[in-house]
């Protein structure tokens, strides 16, 4: 799109604090989420899940359930012999046939007049299981003779990634300092406040209408079509406003096809909404990782090599979680300059909950390890952590050995800004000097940085987004975009970008972004891509409309189109701003003229980045986001309680488009990162989730949030819409890493596994913790 020719003299919408367009409805309780939609005649569905972690299904008796008045259908795999494997790995059927591999597994489903009857019927289904040995960790899964969870996956290896640049042996030989540590990262889950749900209905001609919370409607259209053996054109997906996504809605999950099966069989609309417990048990997690990192540097602080091995607990099936190494390796190879780097990873099947994509996509785990080593190496060569990082940080224009092009890169400015604003070096030295003080409550400060995709992500064959823009006779714009809103504010930002081109106020736009029969194609809302990709697409459509209007105005005024502009709802002379026509009036004159014309345009934006090659070399994004965060903590050495007091964040966001919106993204991400670091821990024991509720799974609450000081570094990316880059995932990525470094600064103890709950921290401080070991259970 070309960076940011600075706007003309008039007022700009860019960089302002723009309230979200959907906020008044949401704050009034007027927004209708999927839970609030009632389709007349709809049946209510319930899914019967396995009571066994790993077992053979011997028999399922649905007769009593079927006999219950008000029950329309009770289905098992036997009723849908045509069902096909779903998900990223295509390794499981929506309804399981002869074997269950995790406690969430779907065994049968009911559609009934009411939710209550469906629940009752569900309890009447009798399933006989023959238990099989439970594989509850990756060590057992890879032990010789371990039973194989899926055919065609010997050793229970679900997926592997191998990447190498340079020669790590040479790199290690050239090192003055070499360190190696093992890190263990835990299970957490998305906890969207709106639980999962779907409504499916077929019309008499067999066309499927889905009301769905998916983040990828166009991809799902195709997947459901394959599943049903029908033309994708016969599937329409409408997304009601979504109560939180964070990556949890990127894959197809069994409940969606099951509800479709029930609708097909009963010939009635069928609605399913999860309970909160079900949401915990049957929606994806962030993948637990065991990570071994070996790093080195020279005496002068130059990084030499990094060798990484990781084992991911994939859970029972393969969803996006298995593919996160693809992002993790970028942090390993390219956050800092490392000549030699080697990365091996395996995702291993177990009988645990299966892992999906979650804000940051593996990068929280990778950054946790890398930034611990940056501190340790700095200390080993006697440099301060800031100078050591600055010495190895990327610069603009860098092409990394992995082949990533950092066209805009404000990394060093992020580092210096966050350090200066937090007075990092002074505080670090002071805290360290107090290690031997008798006071039980210690203060610590820690720094960590991150690199993440900021210009879309080449994961699918296309990373594009389409826009259709219509301007009516009253100069009102309808912006039809493929880009989905999940609460992040995309419809507001896209409106701003279109209005900026068309010289219109925000009140002149309606956004349509949730109906596959109307909106043009988009790959989905993920990878921090919507502002960048959807934004460039909206700008493209608006520029086409503008060109069309100005060409018509040029004919009427006998001025060149280049001499005209759109401002404040008028067509004006560019040089002196003289108003020539009121825009609505001019459009009406076009419409009702002899050669009637409506102003409608369409535009498709696909970023210029190319796909990586099979050795993972090349760009995955058209631009990259950078950030540094400094965390200040208080550690009570007598209780193990860690309080996050302050986060000073500096983010290279390209350019701020909506200041209010971007602050909200950063603050929300920081607090989500705080949860990952300190409070959240999904406890899975022998395949059983022990805390599938908000009482025992601790989200951060309002009294606990830190003071947040956020600075935006505006590097004006050449490909970004008005210079902007993506920011959605970035703020959650380095909190845990920075908190770990802060705990070390406070106490002298380095903790290699998350989360920093009082018990874990207390044990670590008092020498009662087992540090993670390679080869031990991930």
């Amino acid at each position, binding site marked *: 799109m070309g960076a940011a020719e600075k706007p003309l003299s008039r007022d700009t919408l860019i960089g302002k*604090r723009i*309230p*979200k367009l*959907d*906020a*008044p*409805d*949401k*704050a*009034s*309780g*007027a*927004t*209708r*989420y999927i*839970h*609030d939609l009632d389709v007349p005649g709809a049946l209510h569905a319930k899914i019967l899940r396995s009571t066994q972690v790993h077992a053979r299904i011997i028999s399922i008796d649905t007769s009593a359930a079927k006999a219950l008045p008000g029950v329309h259908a009770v289905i098992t795999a036997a009723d849908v012999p045509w069902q096909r494997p779903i998900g990223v790995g295509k390794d499981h059927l929506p309804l399981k046939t002869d074997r269950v591999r995790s406690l969430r597994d779907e065994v049968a489903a009911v559609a009934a007049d009411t939710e209550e009857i469906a629940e009752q019927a569900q309890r009447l289904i009798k399933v006989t299981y023959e238990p099989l040995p439970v594989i509850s960790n990756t060590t057992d899964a890879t032990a010789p003779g371990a039973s194989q969870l899926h055919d065609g996956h010997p050793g229970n290896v679900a997926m592997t990634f191998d990447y190498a640049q340079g020669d790590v042996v040479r790199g290690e030989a050239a090192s003055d300092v070499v360190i190696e540590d093992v890190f263990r990262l835990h299970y957490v889950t*998305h*906890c*969207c*406040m*709106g*639980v999962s749900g779907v409504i499916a209905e077929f019309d008499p001609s067999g066309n499927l209408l889905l009301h769905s919370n998916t983040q990828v409607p166009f991809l799902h259209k195709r997947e459901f079509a394959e599943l049903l053996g029908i033309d994708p054109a016969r599937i329409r997906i409408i997304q009601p*406003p*979504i*109560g*939180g*996504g*964070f990556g949890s809605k990127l894959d197809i999950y069994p409940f969606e096809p099951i509800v479709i099966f029930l609708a097909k069989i009963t010939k009635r609309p069928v609605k399913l909404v999860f*309970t*909160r417990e079900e949401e915990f048990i049957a929606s994806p997690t962030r993948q637990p990782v065991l990570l071994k990192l070996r790093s080195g540097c020279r005496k002068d602080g130059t990084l030499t090599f990094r060798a990484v091995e990781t084992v991911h607990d994939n859970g029972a099936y393969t969803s996006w979680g298995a593919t996160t190494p693809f992002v993790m390796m970028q942090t390993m190879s390219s956050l800092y300059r490392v000549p030699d780097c080697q990365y091996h990873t395996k995702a291993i099947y177990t009988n645990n909950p299966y892992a999906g994509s979650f804000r940051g996509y593996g990068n929280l785990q990778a950054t946790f390890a890398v930034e611990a080593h940056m501190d340790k190496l700095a200390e080993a060569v006697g440099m301060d952590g800031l100078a050591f990082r600055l010495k190895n940080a990327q610069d603009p224009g860098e092409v990394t050995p992995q082949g990533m092009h950092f066209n805009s890169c404000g990394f060093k400015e992020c580092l210096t800004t966050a350090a200066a604003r937090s007075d990092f070096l002074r505080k670090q030295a002071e805290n360290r000097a107090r290690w031997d003080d008798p006071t039980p409550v210690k203060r610590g400060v820690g720094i960590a940085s991150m690199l993440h995709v900021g210009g879309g992500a080449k994961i699918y064959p296309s990373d594009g987004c389409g826009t259709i823009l219509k301007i009516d006779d009253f100069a009102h714009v309808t912006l039809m975009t493929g880009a989905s809103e*999940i*609460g*992040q*504010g995309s419809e507001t930002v896209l409106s701003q970008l279109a209005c900026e081109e068309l010289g219109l106020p925000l009140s002149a736009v309606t956004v349509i972004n949730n109906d596959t029969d109307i909106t043009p194609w988009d790959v989905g809302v993920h990878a921090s891509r919507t502002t960048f990709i959807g934004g460039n697409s909206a700008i493209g459509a608006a520029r086409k409309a503008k060109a069309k209007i100005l060409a018509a105005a040029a004919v009427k005024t006998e001025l060149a189109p280049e001499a005209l502009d759109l401002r404040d709802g008028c067509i004006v002379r560019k040089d002196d701003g003289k108003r020539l026509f009121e825009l609505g009036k001019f459009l009406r004159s076009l419409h009702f003229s002899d050669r009637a014309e409506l102003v409608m345009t369409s535009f498709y934006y696909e970023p210029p980045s190319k796909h990586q090659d099979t050795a993972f070399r090349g760009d995955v994004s058209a631009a990259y986001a950078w950030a540094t965060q400094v965390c200040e903590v208080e550690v009570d050495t007598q209780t193990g309680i860690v309080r996050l007091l302050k986060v000073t964040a500096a983010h290279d966001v390209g350019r701020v488009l909506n200041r*209010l*919106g971007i*602050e*909200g993204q950063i*603050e*929300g*991400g*920081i*607090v*989500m990162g705080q949860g990952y670091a300190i409070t959240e821990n999904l406890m899975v024991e022998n395949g059983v989730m022990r805390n599938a*509720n*908000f*009482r025992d799974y601790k*989200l*951060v*609450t*309002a*009294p606990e*949030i830190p003071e*947040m000081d956020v600075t935006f570094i505006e590097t004006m990316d050449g490909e970004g819409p008005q210079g902007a880059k993506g920011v959605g995932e970035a703020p959650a990525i380095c909190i845990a890493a920075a908190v770990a470094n802060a705990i070390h600064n406070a106490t002298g103890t380095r903790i290699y596994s998350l989360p920093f709950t009082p018990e874990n921290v207390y044990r670590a401080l008092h020498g009662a913790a087992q540090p993670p070991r390679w080869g031990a259970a991930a």
Partner: protein
Amino acid sequence: MSANCEIAFTLNDVRRKLTVPAHMSTLEMLRDQLGLTGTKYGCGEGECGACTILVDGTTVNSCLMFAADCDGRELTTIEGVAVSEAGERLRAAFVASGAVQCGFCTPGLMVQASHVIEGHPGADEATIRRGIEGNLCRCTGYRKIIDAIGAAGRTALKGVEHGRS
């Protein structure tokens, strides 16, 4: 299946008479029986605050209260709060402060916030934080919600002072 109860109560200033199953929660009554979907189901066990309503002027997790226990009480839901003068002020503050993202927790927070402000119009930061600790939000990190409540409280306080003078 189960016994029904006849109850009479005031809901958003309108008197209602209703027959509800004895085991029904107030949340289900509001959403399924009365079609007031602004009050949200977030967890069903009183941990998230998405279903917060006012009962006789006090905030309650409506998922934990039997509908039968509404008899003789005065209920205000987000639909009632949103059209009150204080609610409009609060909504304006939520919108202007950027306190809304996915919006699913917002109705519960609006109701809770209206209660906090009514009790403590000039509430300080710590009081506001404490006042909404029972409401979970996964998107915003709470910062802008706290700011919004503070701003609405200050506006309310100014209104009171102005009224006095």
